[in-house]
């Protein structure tokens, strides 16, 4: 007859996955940012349990980890839409009419910054410089930068995304 083996405490899969991501990186000094990038790349955002899990893994306080997550604009604590659209708000893009483009795109998507469209397809974020300032105004759609943008070109890109999904 098999011995009665006590079960390990039940752990949510999210926590387990964060622990795995951390264990791959935590040996290197200053590992918190690389780990948070890995978490966001995996989940699309930094889940709420991250601070508690990483605090244990890295021997930090939860406040320290939370402080880092909240300091950096790049880390989001809520899921984004299927695609993230960044509009550059920095000076060079402003000199080429980005404020009007920004207003038009917001109207087109019917959302403001940090919001996601009703169908969950696009999240809108501001960004301050994409390093393509000689071809202003610029946007970034996921990992691709698009220069000399107009509303018409933005609409076309979004349309292509939709067709790609279908």
């Amino acid at each position, binding site marked *: 007859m098999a011995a009665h083996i006590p079960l390990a405490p039940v752990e949510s899969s999210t926590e387990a996955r964060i622990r795995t991501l951390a264990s791959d990186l935590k040996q290197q000094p200053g590992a918190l940012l690389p780990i*948070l990038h890995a978490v966001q790349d995996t989940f699309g955002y930094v889940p709420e349990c991250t601070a508690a899990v990483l605090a244990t893994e890295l021997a930090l306080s939860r406040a320290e980890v939370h402080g880092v997550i909240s300091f950096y604009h790049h880390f989001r604590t809520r899921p984004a839409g299927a695609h993230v659209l960044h509009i550059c708000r920095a*000076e060079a893009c402003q000199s080429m009419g980005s404020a009007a483009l920004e207003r038009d795109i917001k109207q087109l998507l019917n959302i403001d910054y940090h919001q996601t469209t009703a169908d969950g397809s696009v999240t809108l974020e501001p960004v301050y410089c994409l390093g393509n300032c000689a071809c202003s105004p610029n946007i970034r759609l996921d990992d691709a930068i698009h220069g000399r943008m107009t509303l018409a070109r933005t609409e076309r890109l979004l349309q292509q995304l939709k067709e790609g999904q279908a």
Partner: protein
Amino acid sequence: MTRLYLSCDSCALSVGADELAQALTAQLGEQIDLQRTSTRGMFWLEPLLEVETPQGRVGYGPLTTEDLPSLLAADLLNGGDHPLCIGLVEQHPYLARQQRLTFASLGHNRPLVMEDYAAQGGWSGLQRALTLSAQQIVDEVKESGLRGRGGAAFPTGIKWQTVLDAQAPYHRGFDEAVKFIVCNADEGDSGTFSDRLVMEDNPFQLIEGMLIAALATGATRGYIYLRAEYPHAHRVLQQAITLAEQQGYLGEAILGSHHRFHLQVRLAAGAYICGEETALLESLEGKRGMVRAKPPLPALEGLFGQPTVVNNVISLASVPLILNKGGAYYRDFGQGRSRGTMPLQLAGNIRQGGLVEVAFGVTLREILYDFGGGSASGRPIKAVQIGGPLGAYIPPAHFDTPLDYEALAAIGGMVGHGGIVVFDDQADLGQMAAFAMEFCALESCGKCTPCRIGSTRAQEVLARIRQGEDAEDNLALLTDLCDTMEQASLCALGGMAPYPVKSIVKYFGEELHSVSQTPSAGGQH
């Protein structure tokens, strides 16, 4: 088979270079050998297609796939004439008038092909450095007169000397008495892209510069702290480091010597303040990017408390040439205390935007009109902002100022990282003054009061001035607040955020009092 060249830089990609490459391959297939090279830095012409002919490379741009039929009809493969033809690329006045030292390879190499890098003189500086003592390398850099190209303009050789002379304590995490080379690649200033060009277009040059810095100071580990907004540069750097490791340039026993150097890229997370060197070090240590008080200098107690060189990408990328050709060669370009060349970046509302690497001393007017060709909109240029979001707005009355560190400082400006953003007469500079403080409030690390609170208060005061509310009293208050921020902030963010505001008050004061009807800062073109 005809050889064609098309850039794979993210600027070219952002305006359709990949689509053009696909269409060319689909239509011409076996007839062409299409090489994806670095960009020429003439961004208004991207995507710029170059065709090799017996006379040299003939260029066409800016192209879209729709231009292909007419190009082929015009005998593209033999360099035939076409409305979008710019003639021999090397003879284009934009390039012919430049003094490209740091960016000499642009347009000539495939970024991740090591043979191309070597063919352009790559690794010669490193090879010479391997025959010199650390002190001799430092002396060569001192001789060159190179000053930090990230904005602070501190002499690079003196920084290296401090790190060379520093005794590194033992560090448990690394199990050695480690010194570091940290490359500041958090290029966050609007209007700047020269760091990105090095990293995407000639990444081995940065690696070579960091290796030379390591030999000069006894550092064994390096980090490239790269902004998260540069995904393409991230991919290129990762691949370049892997290739360099495979070929024995990085890791243990560099090129068979007793030197070792381990290099990795660390991705930032979207905080402008991390371009400030002490905030950057905090971030690399895995913390919030809060500015540190100085002293101690990072050169003595930097990353993880160890002696650390923190240099900008361009400073490090300038070093291979200095070692290859000697410090005196580099020093003989430029004027006064501004030696060598400066990669200026022409951006915003400008007809011919791109990279202009010239010796210090050329005037702003030459840059804007001879190189830039005036505004993109065709309207008069009203102002230029030099040196990023913390730089002053310069009016046309000062366009004859020569570009060097001291001459710009004399009119309240700064070279900074060399970005020049152009605004035409439709720009609302009152709005730009408000934006300067909005940006400072958004990006302040919060450590010191003048920056954290001053930036928000300044936004409120500016709003009242723009609404015409007690304009005179509020202007006096704004001036007072700017002085406080300037003198009492811990770092350059709070200390210099008043610069754009004060320059607008000084040169464009009347614009502060009118709230524009549109949210736009410039005309939509």
